[in-house]
């Protein structure tokens, strides 16, 4: 007997028995599959609201669990554990510990927006995935994901110069995530590129490292973006109840410093 809504149950909680007798009745074959019963006591009632307070998570409450997001999902097709519908369900139920079991893969959403296209309720599941991985990081459940590092390196460069110079972004990202730039496929790619190119273009590409592409008179825009971004971060910390923690940590550091000084 297939279990309805199997997507919503962990495989280890599904028990199938070949031979089974219950209350003297032989139910082998047909009624042989059961969901292990369990008691959940650690509901986090704030979780949905907190994720909804982060950019992208705003419309999570609209979900009616049709499963179109998971059905259309690019990442789910290569990793069945990647299940947006299930995570939205867990978040709305407040089942934090269950969600945390998948904390290391949620950031892998590739933002292809197939889910957004398929969703009949305009939940914007892509946004919910981003908000959820952001929430996991802000709450300290996970380290910053490689993707978040990349976003930050990227945004910092735009705030500074208004433009992206890809070579620099790549170098900074590899540095920040402690990866080597000399991986065999990367070397092969550069070799392919160089074998075709005229010397003149190679020199001008080299110069791009010295003369960085920049938007002129960008300082005021960069400062205004930076100021706005900091305000938003403060708002998010507050929505997630982290402001107090940050304050406590600050005071502690200060008192430690003053002790060290005295």
């Amino acid at each position, binding site marked *: 007997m297939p279990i309805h809504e199997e997507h919503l149950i962990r495989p280890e909680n599904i028990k199938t028995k070949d031979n089974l007798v219950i209350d003297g009745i032989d139910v082998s074959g047909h009624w042989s599959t059961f969901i292990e019963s369990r008691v959940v006591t650690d509901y986090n009632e704030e979780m949905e609201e907190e994720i909804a307070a982060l*950019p992208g998570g705003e419309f999570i409450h609209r979900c009616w669990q049709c499963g179109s997001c998971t059905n259309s999902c690019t990442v789910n097709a290569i990793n069945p554990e990647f299940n947006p519908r299930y995570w939205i369900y867990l978040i709305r139920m407040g089942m934090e510990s269950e969600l945390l079991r998948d904390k290391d893969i949620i950031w892998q959403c590739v933002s292809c927006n197939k889910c957004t296209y398929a969703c009949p309720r305009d939940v914007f599941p892509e946004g919910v995935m981003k908000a959820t991985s952001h929430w996991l990081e802000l709450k300290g459940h996970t380290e910053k994901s490689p993707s978040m590092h990349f976003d930050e390196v990227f945004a910092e460069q735009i705030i500074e110069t208004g433009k*992206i110079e890809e070579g620099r972004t790549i170098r900074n990202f590899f540095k920040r995530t402690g990866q080597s730039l000399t991986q065999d496929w990367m070397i092969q790619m550069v070799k392919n590129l160089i074998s075709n190119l*005229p010397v003149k273009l190679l020199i001008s590409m080299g110069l791009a490292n010295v003369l960085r592409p920049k938007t002129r008179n960008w300082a005021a825009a960069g400062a205004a973006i930076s100021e*706005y971004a900091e305000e938003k971060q403060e708002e998010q910390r507050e929505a997630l109840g982290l402001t107090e923690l940050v304050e406590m940590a600050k005071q502690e550091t200060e008192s430690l410093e003053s002790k060290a000084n005295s």
Partner: protein
Amino acid sequence: MSEKNEKYKKVAYYPGCALEGTGHAYNRSTKQVGKALGLELDEVKNWNCCGAMEVKNIDPKIQTYLSSRVLSIAANEMGHDVVMAPCNGCYHNLKKAEYDLEKDEKSKEVVERISKKAGHKTYEAGEVETIHALDWIKDAIGEEGLKERVKNNLNGMKIANYYGCMYTRPRHIFPEKDQGPGSESTLEPHFMDDLLEAAGAENVDFPLKTACCGGAHTLSDSDTSTKLVLNILKAAEASGAEVIATECPTCHSGLEMHQIRAEKKYGEKTNVKILYFTQLLGVALGLNAKQVGVHENVSHSMEFLKEKGLT
């Protein structure tokens, strides 16, 4: 001649960051094709990055601002009413900014606030129309016009047209699509197919036209990207394609990079060629392969084009 037809003959051109870097060949071929077709591109003055796929993850409204600044310069400082962006990411973000500024008061507030501090006029929704390079050629020249100008017929070259994600999704930011005959479809896009067919190509039935190449995580989660790209490359080959035609610098460099990575890491070799649709149109219009930057691609297609008698 339709009204659109005339309007698209001279447009503001927003190349974006990638076209000055890894997508250099797309920039070169777009400009060359424009020239060969008698279309004028007026580059947006002192433009900035649109926010790409990354800034929205810091805050979506910063992306809206970044894109709105580009639109504001085109509309208010240059007096244009059309901006053409060949990069899917730029095109998508400008469209999204347009949508947000029309519908969302909070986005308007943030954009106004940052624009004021940055010292330029705030962009108002409706001041310019954003189009893709495909719309540009399709509407300004059209299939018939293209047929008249083709010098080197692509002669039945088998092409899989790959549109990627951001040209059609999410649907709500492209209100002009899915409007019946003549309009672009978000489910089965065909503008690139139409143009390349007019240039003499034989388009194969390719099921992964709008599949994702994993471009957002091309470096941060390379294994996922390699798997996704490998799917696309193999499906194109299985469909009988000799070439995958691209319309986005991120997709294009993703396909090239992970074609190599798939071979190095998983021993999966694919031979399908990867060319920008503007490079294919360019050689069909009689430009030589170097003029449209085929030598600047990572994957090697020079020999292939020579064999086909196209350069």
